[in-house]
């Protein structure tokens, strides 16, 4: 069977193609359209997936959309009605927004692909998250917890999944917490309050949290209370997201926490205001972790499962994931490479395949590289046209050369094979650097990523060496496979891994298996031979406000506009040559 999964319209649109029960490809629209967090209907992603899979639209057995648009419409309309008359400003906007395109998904898919309406299916949003988490994991039987801002009505669900001996698979979601009560929205509200972009910058709150103290936990507990049945409820007097799209928090919220931060204002941790924001981030992070850990613990007791599959945007919170692993009683925690809405495209396709069509379960390759490939020849051509120094080396020489350059403090743009599906650069579209000094971290922040000082960089390390440098609990290696957990750097290594050690002594480590990314693994080995420490700083290959690079030309454009010294695609290596701006200006005019 050929099944296309689609997610769209809210953030991170994506498409994924499953053929004969195995994913063939998946890509986020932003990687092709080059608009970060592109929420548009993913025409480019769909076209690329069909072309890559060699499938004509009429050959598709099903097209699965990742949520139920009418149910979502019902939720938005109901919430608007419930907040009458204060929702009078939000109502026209919401209706224009929804009625314009978002609820006509069946027609849009049918008209674009020419597939009959009966072939178009709809999973629920959290079913898609659950499927993306469970069906891509190697677990036979697992508890499932999904949490995000909101899907249709659900904001958090729990359930379980099973691969049966007869080859069938089952996912059962048992119960849900419904909008407006939402852990994701609580965190996003603080994201907005701290002057960051909602649905995009939540990880900045997590980074900032390490600089604060949990002094406001009691205040945040006023906002969110546990209910007698083990769920939670928000005190909606402190929030406005349920009534308007203009602001997430109410004036009562501001009375409790003080004035919000202006997005243009830098966070100066040396000031009382800067420290207040850090304390705020720390406190909401702590409350989120506590609630997730408690819920996961109850879920473990209820299901008796050894494995937990986490899905939804909240599963991107690596600090919370590590605490769940350490404290909930689960032996292994699985977080897919794309736990957010983009991953729902793959989840929806897999759900239809296994649950709706009852196809026998098949093992899914345990890697995140489902996107478009990179071509070293393209890079060589473009760089030569630009009079850059291009070298094409054999594999061994290339690795030794790059390792030497990295050890000498040079920064490398690294592109290899198919791009990652999901928000993390896991070794195919990465900026690599030596992880040893704080100066390197500052240089990357200043010259390449143009981002706030408080945000940490992540390390990548061969799986066999991970425990030597990082204090990983049992099950930690699995969580570190897709950089989904934050773990302590061993104290004796912190000063020698200063660029990737966060202020609280932790790092969001990626433990790399040779089979997953053999060339990056070889580079780590070469770097280890060169410096004695086979650890590299690994950050996503993009500049602020841009999606991660996809093709060689996009890597080259990023290379030219930033302080990256060396660019690698396949076996092609480009060394930056200073270009004369004055000469270019004369030539150009």
């Amino acid at each position, binding site marked *: 069977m050929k099944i296309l999964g689609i997610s769209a319209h809210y953030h991170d649109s994506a498409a994924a193609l499953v053929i004969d029960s195995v994913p063939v490809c998946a890509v986020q629209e932003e990687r092709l359209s080059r608009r970060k967090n592109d929420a548009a209907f993913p025409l480019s992603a769909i076209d690329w997936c069909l072309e890559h899979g060699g499938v004509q639209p009429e050959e598709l057995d099903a097209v699965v959309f990742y949520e139920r648009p009418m149910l979502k419409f019902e939720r938005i309309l109901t919430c608007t009605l419930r907040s009458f008359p204060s929702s009078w400003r939000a109502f026209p906007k919401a209706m224009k927004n929804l009625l314009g395109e978002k609820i006509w998904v069946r027609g849009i898919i049918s008209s674009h692909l020419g597939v009959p309406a009966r072939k178009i299916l709809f999973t629920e949003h959290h079913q898609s998250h659950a499927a993306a988490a469970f069906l891509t994991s190697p677990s036979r039987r697992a508890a499932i917890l999904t949490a995000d801002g909101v899907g249709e009505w659900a904001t958090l669900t729990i359930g379980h999944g099973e691969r049966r001996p007869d080859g069938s698979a089952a996912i059962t979601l048992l119960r849900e917490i419904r909008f407006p009560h939402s852990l994701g929205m609580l965190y996003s509200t603080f994201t907005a309050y701290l002057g960051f972009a909602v649905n995009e910058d939540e990880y900045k709150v997590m980074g900032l949290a390490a600089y604060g103290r949990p002094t406001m936990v009691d205040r945040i507990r006023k906002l969110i209370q546990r209910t007698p049945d083990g769920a939670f409820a928000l005190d909606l007097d402190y929030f406005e997201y349920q009534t308007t799209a203009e602001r997430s928090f109410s004036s009562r919220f501001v009375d409790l926490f003080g004035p919000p931060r202006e997005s243009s204002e830098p966070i100066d941790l040396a000031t009382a205001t800067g420290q207040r924001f850090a304390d705020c981030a720390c406190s909401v992070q702590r409350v989120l972790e506590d609630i997730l850990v408690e819920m996961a613990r109850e879920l473990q007791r209820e299901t008796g499962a050894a494995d937990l599959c986490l899905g939804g945007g909240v599963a991107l919170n690596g600090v919370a994931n590590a605490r769940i692993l350490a404290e909930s009683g689960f032996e292994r925690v699985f977080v897919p490479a794309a736990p957010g809405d983009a991953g729902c495209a793959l989840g929806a396709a897999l759900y239809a395949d296994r649950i709706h069509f009852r196809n026998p379960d098949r093992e899914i390759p345990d890697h995140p590289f489902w996107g478009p490939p990179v071509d070293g020849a393209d890079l060589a051509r473009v760089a030569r046209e630009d009079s850059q120094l291009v070298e094409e080396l054999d594999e061994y020489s290339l690795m030794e050369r790059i390792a030497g350059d990295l050890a000498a403090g040079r920064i490398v743009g690294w592109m290899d094979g198919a791009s990652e599906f999901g928000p993390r650069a896991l070794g195919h579209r990465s900026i690599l650097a030596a992880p040893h000094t704080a100066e390197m971290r500052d240089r990357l922040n200043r010259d390449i990523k143009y981002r706030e000082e408080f945000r940490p960089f992540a390390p990548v390390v061969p799986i066999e060496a991970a425990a030597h440098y990082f204090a990983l609990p049992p099950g930690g290696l699995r969580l570190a496979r897709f950089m989904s957990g934050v773990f302590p750097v061993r104290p004796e290594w912190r000063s020698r891994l200063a660029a990737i050690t966060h202020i609280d002594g932790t790092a969001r480590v990626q433990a790399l298996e040779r089979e997953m990314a053999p060339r990056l693994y070889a580079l780590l080995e070469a770097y280890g031979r060169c410096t004695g420490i086979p650890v590299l700083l690994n950050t996503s290959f993009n500049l602020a*406000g841009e999606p991660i690079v996809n093709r060689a030309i996009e890597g080259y454009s990023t290379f030219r*506009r930033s302080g990256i010294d060396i660019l690698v695609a396949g076996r092609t290596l480009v060394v930056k040559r200073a270009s004369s701006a004055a000469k270019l*200006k004369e030539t150009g005019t």
Partner: protein
Amino acid sequence: MRLVSPKVRATPLDRMLRPVHSWIWADAERRARKLLRFAETEADGGRDLSRAAELTPDPLLRRLYLAHASDEQRHAELFRRRGAGILRSFPSRSQPAFQANWLAPGERGLDDLRVDNTPDDALLAFLHLSEKAAASRFALYREVLAHDPATRAVFDEILSDEAFHMNYTYSQLTRVAPRRYRRRLWWSRLARLWKGYLRLATALAGMMGTIVLTIQYFILLPPFAWLAKRAGRREAPGWTPISSKRNNSIRSQY
């Protein structure tokens, strides 16, 4: 080396509106927010140009677009730093000042640039006109900012780049389309007018839609709102069970 910039002058229309621009730029908070908005526009423009560089098959254009993109990124930083500096200098108000963004747009602030599928000559014509319009407007802003030398210095610095951008887009347009560059420029001017009309029409349609929906909201919705609120009061917070029917059905949009 900096090129000698031609004298950039405000258009007659902008000069007529000088008192309005003086008023817009007089208020410190409005000035700060406008600069921050310009920063976003410049950063967006930089991303569009880097996209153009990625798409063009012409190596010289690629280099120029990349240099232009870096300029835009630098301008964004200049605007951002100055805007944040002004904001820091006084306590913020609870109600931000009226922004008047339509009257004082930034570079390409009112244009919708679609780089993909736009051929180089069309893009160069668009950029040339856009840079020219921005330069003349920035020249006027500089004139009315006599009371704020620091902000004026930002516009000074940016204007010298704008002159280069105007020049290179024109000379490259004549290179890539030597026989039809004039037609391209006129076509681009007409496209700007058409886009202006579309923006106006869309805004009017949006306003009418808002009025109609708001009227419906107050006339039709109250009884449904009462029912929805009553149903809401009956819903207890906490877990809601998920039926097996919901777990198994994926045919419905509901």
